[in-house]
Every structure is written in C-alpha cells, then in structure tokens.
C-alpha cells in the first residue's frame, strides 16, 4: 500500500527515507506547490515543538530560581530590618554619647580648669635643700604670701629667687597680673646661672592663661612639652592637646 504523501514528508524530515526516496520527495517538493506548502508547515510545526520544549525548560528553571530567591522564611526580612534598626539605635546612642562627650569637654575645659589641674604649690624646701635661711624663704615656707611680697618690696637687690618667690606668692593670692610681671623678670634674667628659669616658665604660662593671654600661655606650655628634659615636662605632657585647642577656640 502506498504511503500517504504527508507521512512521507514527515519521514523525509525525520530522515527515515533511503537516498532514492529522499530524491523522490525533493523532486516532488520542487514541482508540487501543495507538497512544498505541506513540507513548510511540517517544518514550522517541528520548530514550534522544539521552541516549546526549550521554553518549558527555561520556565521550570525560572520558577525554581524565583522560588529560591523569593521563598525566604517570612521572618527573615523582618529579622534583617530588626537588626538594621537595632544597629541604627546603637549607632545613634554612640553618636549621642560622642556628641555629649564633646559638648561636655567643650564646656568644662577652660583657662581656669587647666590652671586648677596644673597648679601645684611650689615647695621651696623640697627644691633647694639646705640653703641659708632668709626671711622671704621663711615666710614662703610658712605660706605667708603677703609677708613674702612685703619683704620682696623692701629688697634692694632682687634676685631670681626673690622674684620667683614673690611671683608665686602673688599667684597664691590670685594676683595673676603681678605674678606675670615678676615671672617675666626671672625669665629676662637668665644670666643668673639659669636659676628658677624652668620654674618661672611653667608658672608664668599658667599666669598667662589666667590673664587671658592664651596664645602666650599655650605657646609656653608647648615649648615645655617639646623639651623632654624640662623639669616640668612630666606635668605639661599631661595636658591634652584637645584641651589647649578648646582654650584657643574659646579665646
């Protein structure tokens, strides 16, 4: 029985025919428009099957990927948001604490606070050991600041020591301007074996701060800070650079 034409065309496309049969079909397609038309439709149908199969595979993968991407436990995004919020809160607290600390620092640091922290009474006996006693030194040891100043006023020859003790007495009495002038006298008289120079530098710097001569005071403190062999270096090195900056800003 002769095979229907359409079945032969399908076999032709399926490559099931012998070379002779293939030639016959090709001849038929060339000379029969209907056969050519049928063959074209069959090719299109097979092409549709192929594309559909590919699309089905792609859709399957896409769905599985979407499931993986979107089918997260419902609590997860909440957890992430919660963590995010918690982190934000912690960060906000840190920022607040930091800002509060900066504000507190700015408010609390002043000329007076640095002076208060840095001023230690000068101990004459500790510094000089067995020196010849004199009335000024005695009065100073007795913390009789006014007497020291009076005796200093009666001195005909004013040594670095008498200048310094008088300056320290003025400082004790909160007479910062007078103290500054007397410390300057010591500093201007470096020829006297450099005695009381380093002491005068340190206390003069403090006097400058209290006289609102911040630039001079900070300059002098920085000079001491840069000299590790300075007698008062251990004291000055404790002063925070930030504190000095704040004093400068407040000026």
């Amino acid at each position: 029985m002769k095979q229907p034409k359409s079945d032969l065309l399908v076999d032709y496309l399926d490559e099931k025919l012998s070379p002779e049969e293939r030639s016959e079909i090709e001849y038929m397609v060339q000379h029969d428009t209907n056969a050519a038309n049928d063959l074209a439709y069959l090719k299109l149908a097979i092409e549709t099957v192929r594309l559909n199969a590919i699309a089905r595979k792609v859709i399957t993968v896409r769905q599985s990927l979407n499931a993986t991407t979107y089918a997260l436990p419902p609590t997860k995004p909440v957890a992430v948001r919660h963590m995010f919020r918690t982190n934000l809160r912690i960060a906000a607290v840190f920022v607040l604490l930091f800002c509060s600390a900066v504000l507190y620092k700015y408010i609390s640091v002043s000329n007076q606070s640095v002076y208060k922290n840095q001023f230690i009474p000068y101990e004459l006996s500790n510094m000089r050991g067995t020196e010849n006693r004199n009335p000024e030194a005695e009065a100073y040891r007795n913390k009789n600041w006014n007497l020291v100043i009076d005796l200093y006023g009666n001195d005909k020859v004013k040594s670095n020591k008498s200048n310094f003790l008088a300056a320290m007495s003025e400082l004790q009495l909160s007479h910062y301007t007078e103290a500054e002038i007397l410390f300057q006298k010591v500093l201007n008289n470096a020829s006297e074996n450099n005695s009381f120079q380093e002491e005068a530098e340190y206390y003069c710097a403090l006097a400058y701060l209290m006289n609102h001569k911040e630039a001079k005071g900070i300059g002098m403190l920085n000079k001491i800070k840069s000299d590790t062999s300075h007698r008062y270096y251990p004291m000055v090195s404790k002063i925070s650079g930030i504190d000095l900056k704040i004093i400068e800003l407040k000026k």
Partner: protein
Amino acid sequence: MNKKTNISDSELIEAICASGTLEQAIVQLYEDHGTITRSFIMGKGGTEQDAEDIFQETIVSFIDTVQKGKFRQESGIRTFLISISKNLWYNEIRRRQRAGNREKLYVADFEPGDAILDDVIGNRELKQLLSQMLNDLGESCKKILELFYYENLSMKEIVSHMHYENEQVVRNKKYKCLQQLTDKMKQDPDTAKQINELIF
C-alpha cells in the same frame, strides 16, 4: 542573581549543546546575565514583569540559536543576549502601540539587528500563536513530539517512557499529532496568512 561566575562563554555553549546539562546552563545564564539584561528592559520603560518575560524569551531564542549551531561567538554571550532582549522589547513596544496602548516609548535608538538576530527573534506573535496551538493538542501529543523532536529519543525509548503498547502505536500517534498541528495552522486564517507571508 548578580554574581558573575568563572564559567567561560565557550563552556556555557558546550553545556547548552550537551545532553543533560541544559538546565545548569539556563541557571548560569540567569545568574550571569539576568540582572543586567532585565535592568536594560526596565531602563527602557518595561515593568519588572516585562523584563522577566523578555529575558525568558531571550534565553529560549538564544538556546535555540546555539543548538542549531548558528551562534558564531563573534560577540560575547552577554552582548548577544542584550541585543536579542533589546529587539524583542522594541517589537513588543510596537505591538502595544498598534494595540493602542499609550505607553512611554523608548524606540528612538532602535536599530534593526543583523540577519542572525532577525532570524532569532522572528515573528514573536506568530510563535506565541503556534505555541498555543501545540498546547491545545493535549499533553500526550505534546510529550511525544517533544521527546522525539527535541530530546531525540527513539521510538523504542518513547514506548518505555510513555508506556505505549509498541513502537508502531507511538509512530502513528506522532504522525497524527503532527498532522493535527499543521491542520490547526492552516485552518486559522490569520495564522495561515502570517505563515504564508513568512514562508513564501
């Protein structure tokens, strides 16, 4: 789906052509090229759903091109995918315009693709119509045709796979299904017209 893997274009092409590795290749295509291609569509006025659909269609067309040995690898896979997506999207915009949808247009920089691209993209609407006709044949027809024409299984393998009595039954069923599909194509005037314009 943002990461770029270390799999080269050549390895991906091999995976698409080899049997049993196509699914993995599709995953790779999504992971390596999904985000950028879909971003392109969304940057041209498409919605997220448009971008998903166009990219899916792009991958189908790309796999078809590769499996037919038509992908020349002159350009990288990403460039090729973006070209397909771009043209598919512009065709879709035109279709919506014809349908009267007043959507924002992004066709100013549209340039016709090369011969391969035109071939790859083809007539999107016609393909969708034909796909629908195939689906209308029913699952068994679709399965037999897919197993034979796409999975390249023999009649004997299809018999065991689908539990038919013998190879002849499958053979007859396949002929019948294919005939039904071509009949549907010929019977629908619009489809037949489009096919005739395409073929002749």
